[in-house]
């Protein structure tokens, strides 16, 4: 089927109590707008509009959904509800907040907070390869607070990547776009393909997906940290499974960053999910821990040596 891009709602369009300012982004599954509410506050509005199932042509408001796709469209809507439900339950400074949810124009809309800032992706592109270790540790430790909250609600993000980590103007990170935070889609709906981004998706994202777990999001965290250093996404996991050409962070940036940070990145990027940090907590602990190298023992004097010798057999 030929894929046509959906037309966004026109600027200035009144949608319930909001006025559309402009389109922020267009995805295969939805369109995100910047809008203003009646109090003059800016919000982001996400419109459920899967490209392959519904088409809004120029000048139209209501999308055309053919009868054969109605079932799949409604099913996708269920997933959109799951995203809404998931986010509505999460109230955390490092996770985007949902403000409202409503139905209009034969589809559904999710209103989210909007703040000035940029995505980590934009930040990486601007600072190609010149991102400090302090910045990385700071952003990722706080971002992991949000991810911990997500996991403790029995959810997986499943599409973590720099462009889904939003930095407020004070550089506090916010997790956005939980569009992939649902597992049922994977096997159920051939038209609505599971979404993942090459380079950031874990090996478990490909294939049967039965091994997906917190460790899969952790792979994506590792890949995002790697991207901060490299300036671009690491080799995609499916290609790594065939022929791994990813240079370990430990080798690539030896001496430029602390061994501990590089070690953590490589730890997260293990292809075998069992070898990665198994929980966000474990990863966070490693990130904030200050490593003190073991101090050499003071050379014992002759009495000490004698006592040690006596002690040994016990």
């Amino acid at each position, binding site marked *: 089927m030929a894929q046509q891009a959906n037309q966004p709602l026109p600027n200035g369009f009144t949608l319930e109590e909001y006025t559309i300012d402009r389109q922020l982004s267009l995805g295969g599954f939805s369109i995100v707008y910047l809008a203003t509410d009646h109090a003059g506050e800016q919000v982001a509005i996400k419109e459920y509009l899967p490209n392959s199932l519904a088409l809004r042509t120029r000048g139209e408001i209501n999308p055309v959904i053919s009868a054969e796709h109605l079932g*799949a469209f409604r099913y996708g809507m269920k997933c959109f509800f799951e995203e*809404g439900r998931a986010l*509505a339950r999460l109230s955390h400074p490092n996770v985007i907040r*949902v403000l409202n949810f409503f*139905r209009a124009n034969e589809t559904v809309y999710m209103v989210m907070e909007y703040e000035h800032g940029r995505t980590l992706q934009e930040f990486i592109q601007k600072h190609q390869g010149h991102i400090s270790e302090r910045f990385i540790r700071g952003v990722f430790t706080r971002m992991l607070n949000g991810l911990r909250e997500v996991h403790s609600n029995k959810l997986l993000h499943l599409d973590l990547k720099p462009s889904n980590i939003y930095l407020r103007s004070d550089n506090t990170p916010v997790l956005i776009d939980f569009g992939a935070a649902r597992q049922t889609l994977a096997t159920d709906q*051939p038209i609505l393909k599971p979404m993942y981004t090459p380079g950031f998706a874990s090996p478990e994202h490909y294939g049967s997906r039965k091994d997906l777990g917190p460790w899969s999001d952790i792979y994506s965290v590792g890949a995002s940290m790697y991207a901060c250093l490299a300036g671009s996404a690491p080799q995609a996991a499916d290609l790594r499974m065939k022929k791994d050409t990813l240079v370990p962070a430990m080798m690539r940036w030896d001496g430029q960053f602390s061994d501990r940070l590089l070690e953590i990145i490589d730890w997260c990027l293990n292809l075998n999910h069992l070898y990665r940090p198994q929980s966000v907590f474990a990863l966070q602990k490693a990130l904030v821990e200050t490593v003190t190298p073991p101090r050499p023992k003071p050379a014992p004097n002759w009495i000490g040596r004698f006592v040690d010798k006596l002690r040994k057999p016990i």
Partner: protein
Amino acid sequence: MRFTIYQESRQGGRANNEDRTTYCYSRDALLMVVADGMGGHHYGEIAAQLAVQTLADAFQREARPILTDPFRFLQKGMTNTHHAILDYTARHRLKDTPRTTCVACIIQDNVAYWAHAGDSRLYLCRDGKVLTQTKDHSRIRLLIEEGMITEAQAAFHPDRNKIYSCLGSPHPPEIEFSRKTPLDHGDILVLSTDGFWGEIPGETMATSLKDANLVQAVPLLLTEAELKGGDHCDNLSVVAVRWEDTYVDTASSAISTQTMSQNEVTSRLDEFGRNPAYKSDLSDDEIEKAIEEIRSAIDKYTPK
């Protein structure tokens, strides 16, 4: 190897689709499987999925690029499926074992080898005629062969759906093997479940698929079978292949395996899981309810 292939499985009028199909090919060998999970027993679709998956997995391991012994491969694959189903039953403490029929065919070196258990069939068609077909493992087939009843009577016989061999039953399955059958250019092999062959006679398959584009012709036949089957039409599944001589210029949808490496295997197998088609549609009321639920969650969790 050069061939055109098409597979499709439809739900018919049933609540879910317990049929499974797959095909895999390496540079020099092709495997096709059709399995019909038995509706009278629970988890029929699991048994059928186990059958296609076990055979496809084994093929990917062993077709490098040809199988050393196709008959042995089929025998092993089907026996392993049978045991996998019994293991599944034990592991999940099911009261009754899930069961499935199975027909599988290998083609390599221009020779076809097939095996079946139950009443899923393989038809080999040449020049618009059925050259050979598998014989169902059903009571009715035995009765016909003994001359007790005629084909016409069989169509309405109360026992026409009873089979005495399948994978997953407590009795070991009876697996019947074909002869080694050399294929000619243009030969068509059709593997199908009873939902399809019950409505479309073999002769119709042979004539309508002869020289036709399988990608168009098979769905038409499926639609016809579905119409004939009526409201309570059984699940219907088909894998059809046209064997094509390497020297003849063929349709663009033909698959050529010349460029594949020795150890490469391509598979077309749907992921496990229920077909979304039998997920109930979201009604308007349910949409309103979901929105209401999300709104109250927002209110509840938003700090005022």
